[in-house]
C-alpha cells in the first residue's frame, strides 16, 4: 500500500517536471540579447557640470568614504563651480544617495551596468567621462 502511494506521487512528480519541456525558455542569451532596464536603474553615473555648485552634499551623504572628490573654484561672477570632479567606482556601492540628495539635480545614474575593465585606474570616472555620460545617456535620450 505504502509502495503504491509512493509510486503515484513519483508519477505526479515526473509529469510536473515533464510539463516544463513544452514551455518557452525564460532565459536571455547574454550578450546577444539584453534585458530592458527602466529609468530608475542605478548604473554608471552621469554629471551635469552646469548645474553643480560644488556644495559637497554628495560627498556628505556618500556611505563609502573617499568615493567622490571635488575640487572647487570661483568663477569671475563669484560663483563656485567644480574644477575637478571624480567618482571612484572601485569604492562606489551604487546606493543612489548622491542622486537623491543633490539639491540641484546635477548628478544622475545611467542604465550602463557593464563596468568591467582591465585596469583599476580607468574605473575612476573623471569629470570628462561623467560629462560625456550625461550627454550620451541623459540628454540624447
Amino acid at each position: 500500500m505504502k509502495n503504491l502511494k509512493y509510486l503515484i506521487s513519483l508519477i505526479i512528480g515526473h509529469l510536473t517536471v515533464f510539463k516544463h519541456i513544452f514551455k518557452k525558455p525564460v532565459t536571455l542569451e547574454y550578450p546577444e540579447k539584453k534585458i530592458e532596464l527602466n529609468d530608475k536603474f542605478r548604473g554608471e553615473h552621469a554629471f551635469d557640470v552646469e548645474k553643480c555648485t560644488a556644495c559637497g552634499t554628495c560627498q556628505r551623504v556618500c556611505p563609502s568614504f573617499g568615493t567622490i572628490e571635488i575640487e572647487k573654484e570661483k568663477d569671475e561672477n563669484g560663483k563656485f563651480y567644480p574644477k575637478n570632479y571624480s567618482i571612484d567606482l572601485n569604492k562606489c556601492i551604487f546606493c543612489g544617495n548622491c542622486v537623491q540628495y543633490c539639491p540641484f539635480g546635477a548628478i544622475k545614474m545611467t542604465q550602463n551596468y557593464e563596468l568591467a575593465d582591465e585596469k583599476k585606474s580607468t574605473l575612476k570616472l573623471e569629470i570628462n567621462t561623467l560629462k560625456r555620460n550625461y550627454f550620451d545617456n541623459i540628454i540624447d535620450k
Partner: protein
Amino acid sequence: MQTNNKLKINIGPQHPSTHGVLRFVLELDGEIIKSCEPVIGYLHRGMEKMAESRTYLQYLPTVDRVDYLGGFFNSYAFCNAVENLAQIEVSKRSRYIRVLTLEMNRLSSHLLWLGSYLLDMGATSPLFYTLRDREVLLSLFEELTGQRLMYNYYTFGGVRHDVWADWLKKVADFVEIMPRKIQDYEDIITNNPIFATRTKDIGILSKHKALQYSITGPNLRASGIDLDSRKDANNLIYDELDFETKIAHSGDSFDRYMVRIEEMRECLKIISQCVNWLMGNEGDVISPVKQPTLKVPEGEFISNVEAPRGICSCYVKSDGSGKPYRVKWRTGSYYAVQLLPKLLEGTFYPDMMAIFGSLDVIAPEVDR
C-alpha cells in the same frame, strides 16, 4: 586526521552547500557525527562598528547588506528604530508599501531557500523553477528601487518614491499565477518518497531546546510554538490584514520545509491585500526629512521585524549627535548556527545537509 578511532574532517569555508563562507569541523565515528564545531567570522564586515563613523543617512544604504536576501527587513528595522527615536511620523500609504515590499522580499527569500535546500539534497530541477519565479520578483524590485538586491528604498519617515499603477498591476499578475507554481513545487517535492525519507524524523528540534537557544522564525514555528512578531507589530499595518501564522508540531526538517511552503501562501495573501489597498487609496509617501543631516535626540530603541530567518532586531543608541553612538544587530541565523552542534550529535553524516539546509542559515547574517 585520525585520533582514537575518530576521524576529524573539515567542511568549508569554501564549500558549495554552506551558503556563504562558513566552516564546520566534524568529528566522525564511522558515519556517525560525534561532534560538530561551527567556525564563523569569515564574512565579518564590521557592520556594527561601521555605524559609529557614519551619519544615519550614510549608514542606511549599507544595512541592506546585513542579510542580502532580505534587504528590506534590515532596512526597515533600522529605519523604524531611528523614526521612533526622532519622532518621525510615517504615513499610512508608506506603511502599506513597506508591508508589500517586505512580504515580496520574504517570498523571494523563501524561494531561494527552497531551491538551494533541494539542491543540497541532490534534486536539481526545483532550483531552476524557484529561481525562475524569484526572477520575476527581483525584476519587480529592480523596476521599483533601481537594484535587484541592495534596494536602499526606505528612508526615515517613508519610502523614496511612490508605487505606480503599472507596477502594482504586474505584482497582481504575479500573485495570480504564483499559487499554481507553489502547487507545482509541492507536487514534485512534498509527496516525493526520497525527500520524505531524508527529512522526516531527522534533526528534531524540541520546543524546550528551541526556546533555550532563542530560535525564532519558521524554525521555531515548526517546533509548535506560535510566535510571530507580525501579529503584534503595531508600527506596521499587519493588524489590518488577514493572514494566519502557520505552525507545525514535530520540529523535524520536513516540518520546517512545510512551514515555509505554507508561509509563502500567506505571503501571497498579504501581498494581494496590500495591492488592493494601494490601488484604491491615495496618499503621501515622501519623507518629511528633507535635509541630508538628521539629528536624532538622545535615547535608545530596539525595533523588531519578523524576517525570513527569524526575528531581526536593531538596537540604536543615540547621543544626540548626527551619528549613532551604538548599533547592534540581532539576526536569526546566528542562533540557528549555535544550535547546529546539538542537532547534529549522533546523526549520520549524509543527514548533515538535510538538517543544516532546513535551518535556512546564510553566512553574512551570522557574521554581520
